[in-house]
């Protein structure tokens, strides 16, 4: 079975500071990992994915994530947060050969001006 944990319900940072949203996963095989963002009253928007290759993945809106196999983590990062980054962030994992994604509970990010 596959699963994802996002240990923080909320993350608060000041604009211009680094932003990190944590994610750990569990799969039986090689993982496919994803980050999505949801703005109020909107559907989920894809940010980035890790399938294979370089452990540092770059995505939309200046976000990046680092795949760490030994720690089974896939933390989302942004060097300098913007107020407009305030949203709900979801980490998701898919096991090889499975159609389904498993999502974390979500982390609400608030960036204060």
């Amino acid at each position, binding site marked *: 079975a596959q699963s994802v944990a996002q240990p923080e*319900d909320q993350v608060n940072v000041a604009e211009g500071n680094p932003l990190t949203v944590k994610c750990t996963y569990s799969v039986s095989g090689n993982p496919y990992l994803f980050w999505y963002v949801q703005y109020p009253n909107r559907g989920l928007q894809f940010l980035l994915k890790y399938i294979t290759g370089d452990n540092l993945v770059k995505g939309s809106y200046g976000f990046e994530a680092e795949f760490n196999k030994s720690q089974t983590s896939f933390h989302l990062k942004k060097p300098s947060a913007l107020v407009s980054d305030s949203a709900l962030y979801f980490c998701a994992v898919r096991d090889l050969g499975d159609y389904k994604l498993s999502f974390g509970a*979500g982390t609400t990010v608030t960036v204060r001006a």
Partner: protein
Amino acid sequence: DVKVTQSSRYLVKRTGEKVFLECVQDMDHENMFWYRQDPGLGLRLIYFSYDVKMKEKGDIPEGYSVSREKKERFSLILESASTNQTSMYLCASTSIEGSFFQYFGPGTRLTVT
């Protein structure tokens, strides 16, 4: 530009009513999914379909059914709506090839009174 559309953004129904939520994708994707999103629980998979007339139960199928008569359309049916089905419902689709990530619709916020 890829698109997943859902028939309603907001819906209010009474307990016991039969409710239909429609989802249409224009990307010729094989796989389609229905999730419900609740605060603190993330996204939970209700049903998915990997081909026309094919369906599989997800993690929380009780109280729901689905229909996929055409490749582009995937319907979620609440046979007899109950107040505990008040939620945000998200539809997604994905190809069996390529980048593996799911495209999401804007969501339907269903309130059952």
